[in-house]
């Protein structure tokens, strides 16, 4: 069977529950009432930003598991990632949880690449409970990719604000009255030669477009089939470009098209072009979108998480920014 990265999950694995944790600043998000836990301290009362980062992923996992009355020892797989070098926050959280683990790196598209892996193992009948998700912690990621926050570097309008949040989904074999994972599209790396790390949205927009186009063509679907088509963290700048690219491909761009990064802080100009980070799409997808599927507001959604696969070193060596987007289709059945 040839799939070319187009995935279908005939057993319709369920997202049985989700857990979303967020930092104190994320209280300003219009979606904050949907988050399960908001910490009062940006380091989650721990010594370092990175320890706080791990704690957020761990807590989101525990919250998600508790909603189906499960414990980590009952889980089969844990697919998670973040943006710190070697994904140490995810590694440390996996060390505490003691669930068989593979660290995932698709930058800010990790929310969906993890979910696709969870759907694959569940569809292959290898798992009863799999955890999937991603997180990011503002201070840790700024230090990793840009400048330590204490340096106080200026940011241009096109730059985005890394969110402090983690979102974890519990994937199980099909359950009634929960959103199910029906289809997915694994992204290709798209690099159109952008080099500005403070304008990631523009670099990622073509990758989101490529995945959207492949998904619609490959699965014989139309944008009209969905109640929501939500990209990950293109931000205002990137999302405008994405909509322009979609219009050129004769895709009808309507209100259904949204971007988690643009929406995360409600368009507050203090956050420049909007939110970004592996926790951005995971937090919105697994709280707001998941919630609206449970209440029946959305029947069928397409989530396209976007990630820029640069490293500080590749950027310093003058390399361009390779980008990726992974898509998943969720349905309420």
């Amino acid at each position, binding site marked *: 069977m040839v799939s070319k990265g187009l995935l279908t999950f005939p057993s319709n694995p369920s997202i049985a529950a989700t857990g979303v944790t967020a930092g*104190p*600043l994320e209280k300003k998000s219009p979606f904050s009432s949907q988050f399960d836990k908001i910490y009062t301290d*940006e380091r989650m009362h721990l010594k370092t930003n990175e320890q706080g980062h791990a704690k957020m992923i761990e807590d989101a996992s525990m919250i998600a598991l508790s909603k189906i009355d499960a414990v980590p020892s009952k889980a089969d797989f844990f697919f998670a990632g973040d943006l710190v070098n070697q994904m140490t926050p995810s590694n440390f959280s996996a060390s505490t949880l003691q669930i068989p683990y593979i660290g995932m790196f698709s930058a800010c598209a990790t929310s969906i690449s993890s979910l696709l892996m969870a759907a694959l193992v569940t569809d292959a009948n290898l798992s009863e409970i799999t955890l999937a998700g991603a997180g990011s912690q503002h*201070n840790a990621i700024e230090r990793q990719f840009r*400048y*330590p*926050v204490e340096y106080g*570097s200026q940011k241009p309008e096109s730059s985005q604000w890394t969110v402090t949040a983690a979102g974890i989904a519990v994937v199980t074999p099909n359950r009634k009255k929960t959103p199910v994972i029906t289809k997915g599209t694994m992204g290709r790396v798209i690099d159109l030669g952008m080099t*500005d790390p403070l304008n990631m949205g523009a670099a990622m927009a073509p990758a989101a477009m490529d995945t959207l186009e492949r998904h619609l063509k490959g699965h014989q679907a139309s944008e009209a089939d969905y109640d929501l088509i939500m990209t990950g963290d293109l931000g205002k700048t990137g999302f405008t470009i994405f909509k322009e690219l979609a219009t050129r491909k004769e895709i009808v761009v309507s209100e259904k098209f949204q971007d988690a990064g643009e929406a995360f802080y409600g368009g507050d100009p203090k956050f420049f072009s909007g939110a970004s980070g592996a926790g951005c799409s995971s937090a919105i997808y697994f709280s707001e979108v998941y919630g609206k599927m449970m209440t029946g507001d959305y029947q069928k959604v397409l989530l396209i998480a976007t990630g820029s696969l640069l490293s500080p070193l590749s950027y310093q060596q003058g390399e361009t920014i390779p980008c990726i987007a992974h898509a998943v289709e969720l349905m309420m059945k």
Partner: protein
Amino acid sequence: MSLFITAFVVGGLISVVGQLLFDVAKLTPAHTLCLLVVIGSVLDGIGWYEPLIDFAGAGATIPITSFGNSLTHGAMAEAEKHGFVGVLTGMFEVTSSGISAAILFGFIASLLFKAKGKN
């Protein structure tokens, strides 16, 4: 009073150049900083920076271009006394106070405060 105004205007103009390098030329903060240091160093090499300090005072000594000026200044002064080796020893002669102060005050600040994000 006029001294304050010239200092303000000249210092402000140097900062405007930095801001334009950042916003228009799209240089990174690190590249902007290095370029301004190099410009200060070159300007002193051709003898233009000292007159600028005489004219604008702190307006010329406070911006980072002054650090480049001090590097060249120290190197040339020592070179006159000790020849080529003076270039090496003089480079940090004038700038050492600035560098030491940065390390010392950075250390003290890190003992007293912890970095915080926006809230």
